[in-house]
């Protein structure tokens, strides 16, 4: 069995789940809860700086990450343990591993399928919000300043990787799916609730540290390093250490 076929198979099995519609609903709803952008562009004369407006529209998308972070945390904690730990418990994973396909490819297929589903829904929700902010000029801004318009995309890919890697790690080290969900939720929500305890610390933790205006690239680098490290650790545990009874 080819890896791509297996990814397609995993992707289809995820989209068949009844969790997809609530996922879409939650993402689209929470994308509006991140707050509104109050920025303005100052002008003198008739020269229109479309790049500045595109930058503002891009920030509207980035601000949405605060809203969708909870949805990302919640659905990462459901989808990933369901795809890994639950299949380990029910014996489906044992069947997969009996096929002529390496453990790494099984892991890769599950990783990509879940990551694509989460990213597709969050990206669609954020870009829908951006599009609805100015439907008449959205594509004009995209043509004039693609960097600013694609900035939310990069930030979402990073935010998803972070929530996803935490859930992935707990999925491969937990015995039961609900344990993994609980640990992931607890960890991811604890970052979010730090802002209530100490608002100063919020800029150093997700989801605020994904805002490019408020953080340095060093913070983003650390979170990416942490996510990649957790993902690689999970891969190692799955391929080398996981016992399938």
């Amino acid at each position, binding site marked *: 069995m080819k890896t791509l076929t297996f990814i397609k198979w995993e992707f289809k099995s995820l*989209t068949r789940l009844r969790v*997809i*519609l609530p996922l*879409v*609903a*939650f*993402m*689209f*709803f*929470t*994308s*509006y*809860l991140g707050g*509104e*952008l*109050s*920025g*303005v*562009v*100052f*002008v*003198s*004369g*008739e020269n*229109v*700086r479309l790049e*500045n*407006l595109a930058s*503002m*529209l891009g920030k*509207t998308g980035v601000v949405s990450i605060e809203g969708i972070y909870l949805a990302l945390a919640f659905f990462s904690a459901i989808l990933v343990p369901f795809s890994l730990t639950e299949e380990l418990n029910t014996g489906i994973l044992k069947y997969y591993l009996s096929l002529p396909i390496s453990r790494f490819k099984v892991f890769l297929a599950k990783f990509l399928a879940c990551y694509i589903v989460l990213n597709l829904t969050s990206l*669609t*929700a954020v870009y*829908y*919000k951006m599009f*609805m*902010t*100015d*439907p*008449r*000029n959205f594509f004009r801004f995209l043509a004039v300043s693609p960097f600013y318009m694609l900035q939310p995309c990069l930030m979402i890919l990073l935010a998803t990787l972070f929530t996803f890697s935490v859930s992935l790690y707990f999925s491969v080290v937990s015995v039961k799916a609900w344990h993994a969900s609980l640990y992931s939720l607890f960890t991811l929500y604890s970052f979010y609730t730090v802002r209530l305890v100490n608002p100063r610390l919020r800029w150093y933790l997700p989801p605020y540290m994904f805002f490019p205006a408020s953080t340095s690239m060093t913070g983003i680098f650390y979170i990416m390093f942490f996510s990649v490290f957790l993902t690689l650790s999970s891969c190692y545990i799955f391929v080398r250490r996981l016992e399938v009874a």
Partner: protein
Amino acid sequence: MNPVSKLGLVLITAALSALAGNIFTLQGPGLTITYSTGRSLGPQKLSGIYLFLKSYEYRVTISCDGKALFMVLRLEDLLSSAGNLEEKALIKKVVEGWSEVSFRPERRGAYALLVKNLEESRLSASFAVFTTKVLEVDFLMDTMVAITIGVFLVVIGLTLNAVSQRRLRK
């Protein structure tokens, strides 16, 4: 359910959820934006701000120490104006001293709020924009369009399903 129906269902869910989110944000306070030209606005010169407005109700208070023209323009009108800004302006008001303008944009989007000095000397002008949040009718209409497309896709998907099942029976 075939993929076309599923896509329709996802579209309906997405549009309704976004509408719910949009209505939920009406609870928060409306934004207030202030702008001042300082003493820098020369004769017949323009100054102002661009911002994204929604179809809320806006009240603008303008004050200046001379005669000025306050204008509200859509971004696309501004881009195609070719110098005739006053003709394209949605709102225009000559202000001497202090004045107030209320407006509600028909469509949300990028707008320019500009002040033009009508004096032959330098002028100082400032304005403040106060927002009153109301239900965005244009957003509601766009959501209805998305829902209609979704329903259309669901119907098409179900019809295709029924046709294929009939063929199988034959």
